[in-house]
């Protein structure tokens, strides 16, 4: 039913979804891009939920791009070779 490989696929697909969102067309429309966020001088990490979500999306995109490329390549090769 729910094997370990399936879990891996699910995780990779979800992170893919976060990574390929277009920043200026989509995220800026929803005001979720890091460019439209300007932290005031006192709050820092104790900011609102929206600020945190913006931070989280930005950091996921920055950090997970390289491992995602590797993971996607592995999955593609696996699916091609072994069906």
């Amino acid at each position: 039913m729910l094997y370990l490989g399936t879990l891996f696929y699910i995780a990779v697909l979800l992170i893919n979804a976060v990574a390929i969102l277009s920043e200026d067309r989509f995220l800026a429309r929803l005001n979720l891009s890091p460019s439209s966020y300007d932290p005031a001088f006192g709050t820092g990490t104790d900011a609102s939920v929206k600020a945190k979500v913006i931070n989280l999306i930005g950091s996921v995109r920055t950090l997970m791009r390289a491992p995602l490329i590797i993971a996607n390549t592995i999955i593609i090769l696996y699916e091609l070779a072994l069906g």
Partner: protein
Amino acid sequence: MQRNTYGQSPPLHHPVPQHVSTVPQLRSPPPPPGSAQSQQQGYAPTGQQGNPYQQQGGTSGNVFGAYGQFMNDPTAQVAAQFGQTAFKQGQEYVEQNIGRYVNVAALKHYFNVSNSYVINKLFLVLFPWRHKGWSRKQAVGANGQEGWYLSPRDDINSPDMYIPVMGLVTYVLLSTLIAGLKGAFNPELLGVTATTGLSVVIVEIIALKLGCYLLSISSQSQLFDLIAYSGYKFVGIIVTITVAEILNGGKGTGGWIGWAVFAYTFSANALFLLRSLKYVLLPETNGQPSGPMQTDSRAKRNQRTQFLFFYSYIVQLFFMWVLTRA
């Protein structure tokens, strides 16, 4: 008695069989410097092949005294000693590496349980409504400051890892047993159920950590606490599956008896989690009379309370349903 043929009685701390062995025992090798003399004397029998085999260094004579009947072959002894050394090295290697990834000392704290603790905790998970006082006790440190939390042996409210681990294993075995009773067993089912259980725990922890980050809850409790709390639902799931199987023949999704038991265990588990996680997730109301701080954190406190409710009820409902389905 038969022991007159030997020199002295074997040392009491070492389990040596007391019966007569007609095969002549090898004299034990000369003891390494510093080892006790009594061990050698314990095995000083009427061995005829003593001297040529005394060059086998090390302490192999003591361990294999119990196997004196078939370990007379010197090559077997050498092989056994080699195996012993290899095993020791492997053990050290494993200890070093596992000690780097998993904090073994902290893990031991969670398995420090007693029988009465287990029984009381199981009763508490299944019937949490009458329990008063959910805060964990803390041991006072040396200077009178708050030290560390008490281990589960002394504190009924402290989370442990014994019940969740046993719950997970019992759940895997029980659901494969029930599948086997229905005639739908294949060995893959064991792995699939174990993976499902583990992945539920992992996904829950990720969701909880995500929620904590988004709401800027500085959770001071360790990761193992959260894993332990997440593993307590297996108790309710086991009860649900067992009762549904006995009374119903069908499954939890079958007749309404199964659903009734599921609803009961789910609400018990939710209340248990709510009361326990209150101290973990929600900030303590210290009674600070500062004005702007208070109003700022009121909205946050509402958010956190809502998050706690959401987590305890809805998330748990979903996962418990997933686990009682298979």
